[in-house]
């Protein structure tokens, strides 16, 4: 085999292979369901019904998806620069400080539509700064970004426990969380959109940050594929050597890409803090930063792939909660397994089925591979 990763038609490369990988991941998850003594097909039906069965459920699914769009985009931007930002979890967690400090300071004086932009800036800024240090260390001191961002997740967790327990907690309260925000620190819900479509929503946390997430998806698309900076980021990610030869500064791209990534991860904090709970509590990120890795891999680092992938994971979260009611053996931790399997099959093993599919394509229609039939076995 002379060309292990020969070209496939576009629809096979961007549609068929990811789909097969995803399918295998879900079949493996089905095996785990079998192992705990439940019927995987029934589980899937309950899951989908729990995620999309009513307006209420759809609103919850989209609420969770909002988190994953932000973190998925964050991981994707770093991927384009050839960087693996595993620190989205910590960046989102620490960005909660930016959001809640803004909300605590202005919720009694400003209306929500003035607090919101300030909180966006606060979240993005704090998230970006938390990503800046690992980026700087990678660019200037040569530390490995994966290791430093992992370490920064743990440091962020320690900082946040300290801040919530010793600084932000009102003296009279027991639980380590900030005080409840007033109206100026609460984002409006979007449930009316679903109700306008004839669905009924009792009370769901879907809020305006969902729209912000979609705007950010467009922003990332424009940034990566329609700007000079995006071109430089992609060039650097594709071939650092070529980028250096073309006069693109390595450290500049590393730092900028990581700060954009951290800023996007940071904005995730808006959704649960200002959109749902109206206070900041311990561990509000709840793994969304890590789900972003699976979302970015599944969506092939393109916003058009990331948004549906995020909705799929939102579906797993919401449907998984319903599933836990029906099948007590399956808790929401099932999602963590699925997430791991998706990362394994869509990420680390993404090329596993490629040779088979290539052989298949080559034997079925050699011309679709852009090579004459006689040359397929060439050395």
């Amino acid at each position, binding site marked *: 085999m*002379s060309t292990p990763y020969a070209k496939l038609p576009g629809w096979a490369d961007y549609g068929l292979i990811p789909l097969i990988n995803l399918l295998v991941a879900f079949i493996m998850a089905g095996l*785990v369901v079998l*192992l*705990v*003594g439940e019927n995987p097909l029934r589980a899937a039906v309950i899951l989908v019904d729990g995620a999309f069965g009513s307006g209420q459920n759809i609103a919850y699914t989209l609420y969770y998806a909002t988190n994953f769009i932000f973190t998925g985009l964050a991981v994707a931007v770093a991927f384009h620069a050839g960087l*693996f930002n*595993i620190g989205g979890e910590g960046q989102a967690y620490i960005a909660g400080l930016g959001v809640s400090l803004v909300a605590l300071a202005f919720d009694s004086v400003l209306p929500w539509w003035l607090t919101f932009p300030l909180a966006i800036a606060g979240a993005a800024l704090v998230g970006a700064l938390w990503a800046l240090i690992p980026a700087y*260390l990678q660019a200037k*001191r*040569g*530390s*490995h970004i*994966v*290791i*430093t961002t*992992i*370490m*920064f997740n*743990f*440091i962020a967790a*320690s*900082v946040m*426990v*300290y801040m919530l327990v*010793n600084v932000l907690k009102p003296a009279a309260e027991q639980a380590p969380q900030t005080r409840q925000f007033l109206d100026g620190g609460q984002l409006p819900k979007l449930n009316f959109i679903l109700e306008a479509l004839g669905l009924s929503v009792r009370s769901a946390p879907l809020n305006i940050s969902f729209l912000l997430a979609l705007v950010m998806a467009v922003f990332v698309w424009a940034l990566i594929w329609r700007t000079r900076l995006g071109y430089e980021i992609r060039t650097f990610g594709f071939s650092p050597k070529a980028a250096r030869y073309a006069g693109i500064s390595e450290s500049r791209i590393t730092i900028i890409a990581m700060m954009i990534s951290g800023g996007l991860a940071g904005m995730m904090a808006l959704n649960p803090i200002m959109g749902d709970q109206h206070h900041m509590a311990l561990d509000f990120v709840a793994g969304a930063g*890590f789900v972003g*890795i699976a979302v970015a*891999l599944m969506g092939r680092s393109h916003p058009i792939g990331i948004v549906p992938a995020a909705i799929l994971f939102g579906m797993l979260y919401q449907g998984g909660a319903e599933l836990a009611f029906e099948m007590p*053996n*399956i*808790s929401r*931790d*099932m*999602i*963590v*397994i*699925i*997430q*791991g*399997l998706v*990362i*394994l099959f869509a*990420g*680390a*093993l*993404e*090329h*596993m089925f490629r040779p088979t599919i290539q052989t298949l394509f080559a034997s079925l229609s050699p011309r679709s591979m852009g090579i004459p039939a006689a040359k397929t076995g060439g050395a």
Partner: protein
Amino acid sequence: MDLLVQLLDATIRVSVPLLLACLAGLYSERAGIFDIGLEGKMLAGAFAGASAAAVSGSAWVGLLAAVAIAVLLALVHGFASITHRGNQIVSGVAINFIAAGSTIILGQAWFRQGGRTPALSGDARFSAIELPGAEALRDVPVIGTIYSDLISGHSLLVYVAFLMVPFTWWVLFRTRFGLRLRAVGENPAAVDTAGISVTWLRYRAVICTGILTGLAGAYLSVAQNAGFVKDMTAGKGYIALAALIFAKWKPVPAMFACLLFGFLDAASIRFQGMPWPVIGKVPVQLINALPFILTIILLAGFIGKAIPPRAGGVPYVKER
């Protein structure tokens, strides 16, 4: 004196899982396979160990199960990153999640104790071993206390862990396998040219990693604690990774790094809320974060320089 001995005793106990996981990572990373899945393998090992020990009533069966499942996950990592040349970081992350999720789901489905396994007792646990003469020497000042309280009275796996340090050093630096293993992490093409299979060598390194993470997991759930609790590794795999970098991928410094991080952990529990001499009261969160902060400072080259194996993280593609 008593306080110091207690503190050091606790240090040894919390350092052992770090040390086993750290040495585990050493084999893999020295062979050029980055492994951030130490955490997941240790967790899966702890769960399998506690489950098998609970069902069979034998700590040894638990140990075997722990090693078996950790090796299996290590082989998945090998399959993805050696055979299919996938991204090693991505594969490690995947294994951590699969282990974190499935230990909870399976634990709840099999034992119905909220993700715990049944409490282990008697032969289902590795109990403390009294070293010969520990009782007789107890009254000898200083040496007696150190020998009978600090060195004696640990479970078997503690001694195994510390014996693994010279053993690993001997394997890596005094055997042919070790020489080749280090070579394949620095320059796989040279190893390949010499007619040695890069793939098989790296698989063997990954299997060593599996065995040691399995031991680390078994220690957690079958020796140190009496059963599995969900997420019981609590980041120890990552601290071990930090220790590995801190030790610059060398076995003896790895032991000292693990003891240092273990000491920080033990001291933060022992002195929680107490004022320290000179610096005053230190928040416990700062001490918890200290291993990570120290590693970052080291990685940044402000105190010495940690240079990873040169071919680390790069899949080997045979020249055509």
